[in-house]
């Protein structure tokens, strides 16, 4: 099962603060809803355990998150891979990061994910809605923490 998303987010914080926040793997991981634990491996990698509940498929996913920032600070690429209870998720995403005035930042982002295993077959009909909930919650958390 292949899923694709894209979106536009405005964060009420200067670009430098947003850029610094999304370059911190621990901060990014802690914005993911239903996080069980996060272990920062290095400046670009974090291993996370996330509770997943999609339809009848419920359990913990072990995920490897890799941040790949462009040196000029204009774009952040992201890879997430892992899974659990016989399911696998591979996600690739990227966000163009632009300043919108002195106190605001815009993220134009897109992502695609490949799902395999019961999460695709059993939960396939509801996974897209669930994934969009995770994405929106994650961005809400990023906004809140960058703005505070």
């Amino acid at each position, binding site marked *: *099962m292949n899923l694709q998303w894209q979106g536009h987010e405005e964060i009420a914080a200067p670009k430098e603060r947003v850029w610094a926040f999304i370059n911190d793997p621990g901060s990014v991981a802690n914005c993911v809803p239903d996080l069980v634990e996060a272990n920062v491996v290095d400046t670009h990698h974090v291993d996370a355990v996330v509770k997943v509940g999609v339809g009848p498929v419920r359990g913990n996913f072990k995920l490897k998150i890799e941040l790949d920032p462009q040196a000029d600070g204009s774009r952040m690429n992201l890879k997430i891979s892992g899974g659990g209870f016989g399911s*696998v998720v591979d996600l690739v995403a990227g966000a163009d990061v632009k300043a919108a005035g002195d106190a605001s930042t815009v993220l134009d982002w897109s992502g695609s994910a490949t799902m395999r295993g019961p999460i695709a077959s059993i939960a*396939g009909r509801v996974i897209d809605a669930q994934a969009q909930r995770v994405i929106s919650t994650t961005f809400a958390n990023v906004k809140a923490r960058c703005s505070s």
Partner: protein
Amino acid sequence: MSTTEVPTNGRHAMGLPMKRKEDARFIAGKGRYVDDIVLPNMLYLAIVHSPYPHAKIVKIDKTAALAVPGVKAVITADDLAGVNLAWIPTFHGYDKQMVLAVGKVLYQYQEVAAVVATSREAAADGVELVDVEYEPLEPVVDPFVAKTDKTLVREDRENKTNHIYHWEVGKRAETDAALAGSEVKIKERVYFQRCHPAPLEPCGCVADMNPATGTLTLYMTSQAPHAHRTVISLVTGIPEDKIHVISPDIGGGFGNKVPIYAGYVCSAVASIVTGVPVKWIETRTENLTTTGFARDYHMDVEIGATKEGKVTALKVTTVADHGAFDAAADPTKYPAGMFGICTGSYDFPIAFTELDAYFTNKAPGGVAYRCSFRVTEASYAIERGMDFLALKLGQDPAEVRLRNFVRKDQFPYATPLGFVYDSGDYHTTLNKALDIIGYKELRKEQAEKRARGELMGIGISTFTEVVGAGPSKHFDIMGIKMFDSAEIRIHPTGSGIVRAGTKSQGQGHETTWAQIVAEELGLDPLNLMVEEGDTDTAPYGLGTYASRSTPVAGAALAMAARRVREKARKIAAHVLEAPEADVEWIDYKFQVKGVPSKTITMKEIAFAAYTNPGPNEPGLEATYYYDPPNLTFPYGAYIAVVEIDKETGYTHVRRFLAIDDCGTVINPMIVEGQIHGGLTEGYAIAFMQEIAYDENGNNLQPNFTEYLIPTSLETPKWETSSTCNPSPHHPIGAKGVGESPNVGSPAAFVNAVMDALSPLGIKHIDMPLTRDKVWRAMEAAKTP
């Protein structure tokens, strides 16, 4: 009639609607299935499955799993390689298959490792903690893409191609010429989707190695216990006398319990290594995703005809999706099974069919799901084809069929694709169906409804099956000839035990086998105990699948009973003090010729066999191994009447009539039950079921929330009737019936739906005809 009642006059057993003897224990919850077997010190086995459809295995880390309290072992392909069991031969021996994944996984849910533990829970916990690192590879899930060989499924094979084999039968050039010269031609592609037998009880086993005796006892869900024992011996090197296969009560098989699966092998290895019993019971998801599927044939059907509607030629070209291994359950010399039956009930002057099979990253299989080796696919192709032809000709599909049937006087009838049909009267059977259903009135009603814009359809399927493999000169499984066997022992008091090499999975053998023997010997069927499924006691047989039990083992039973009767004649002659030549079998007892007062019953002879045999060898028993001279050819005429809701696409099956001709009927009530069950499965295939994969190789129907089973709410009301043309070469004239309704009904349903939709210009929709597919087709038809 209750199970305690004796059939009419206590002797005439054949053809009576005896209630099933076995149901007394099933209704009381006293059936004994594999999962009911609990042995001392038993361990439990659970399996790790791949989430990927195609991936290299980088490493398997057992450490965390082995740390789970109760986990005793984690088995991988490397461990199996140590005992030469990493690979085993497939059903017909042309390919080999991994037991556990060797180096890479080839389909989603493939077995990767097995965890053995002291409880099911510990085994399941261990499964979660076996850490398998994969390197994903591009999957190929479409056989038409597999044809390109861009992605290779099986790098282990010498031939670096996804193409498995090409098979053909008939005369290609003459058929092509006949088609080219035909006044009317149709060529259409129909797909018989991948579906699954989904028996109520999934597969399982208890492997019990006795270190003291060196005997491996396998309690397993086996439709063919003897064949499995031989295969296990050949593959493992364990002497066959040290392998004891017991197949207890089985909750449905439908072909699914013919192949050897990873759980069986791993349990046996685990028991041999640990010296204690090991149980493996499959989950529903494991059953649907890893065990033998059925069908998955893409068929191009070409029919030529005169403009009057007389067929001139048939050509069927098929692409078969076999999944990751060539594990199709077909006899050795018939890689596409009996697909040559695709000429159906029709008198084609010439025909040709060919098939190419391909590997894909899907579960392997191709089992004979309630049909005799690809007969359902062939039947569907020709029955859809005849409706396409009727549509092209603008003629009634019943008329087209009646015009082209093989006539009664043509039997035995040699088809252009090599079969010799034994007996039949297709015209009578279809005409009976048309009369019962009220065909003319239904067509009139349909015309009126069409005038009002309503969608009503009538679908006909007049199939011919081929069952009873088989003549051993043609049919074998891995070299083992497909005969079957029976053994009868009559006790001194006139009761007895009947054993056969078959194995009932719900067919009612305990009743029908007793009826056959009772009929031949004039005994009470209620006092004939039938035993199957234990290789230490039953005579060697090839098992129950492909509607072969009655055509082969049923014949063996009748012949063994006749041997008993001949022995009994000698004892009767002694007791009646008459020459053997003067002793006749009349009215279910022996009588001295011309002296009606001098008679003796079989029950009396049984006592004499042990107390007063005279010059004869004591005892009264016989064994018979029956090698049929030909296959049998049951047939039927099915008619479905449907109405379709234009707003939702919902199809209501208003009526369904099945007229079956299975030759001599042993027990009409059991036959009716078989037909009801098969029609219900046929309905599910036509309207509800498909094992589909997405573009990433995800199996989308891994449980019963997605792979739907019809309940009493969905199941239509079945109307049944019969005609009877006995098989001339079968000792009692029986042909087999259990699979006919599954073979014949899908085409009747689809033909009915397409007939309903024809005013909209819709010619074909592939099964399953779910309401959303029908609705989408209707919406698409609105677009100019």
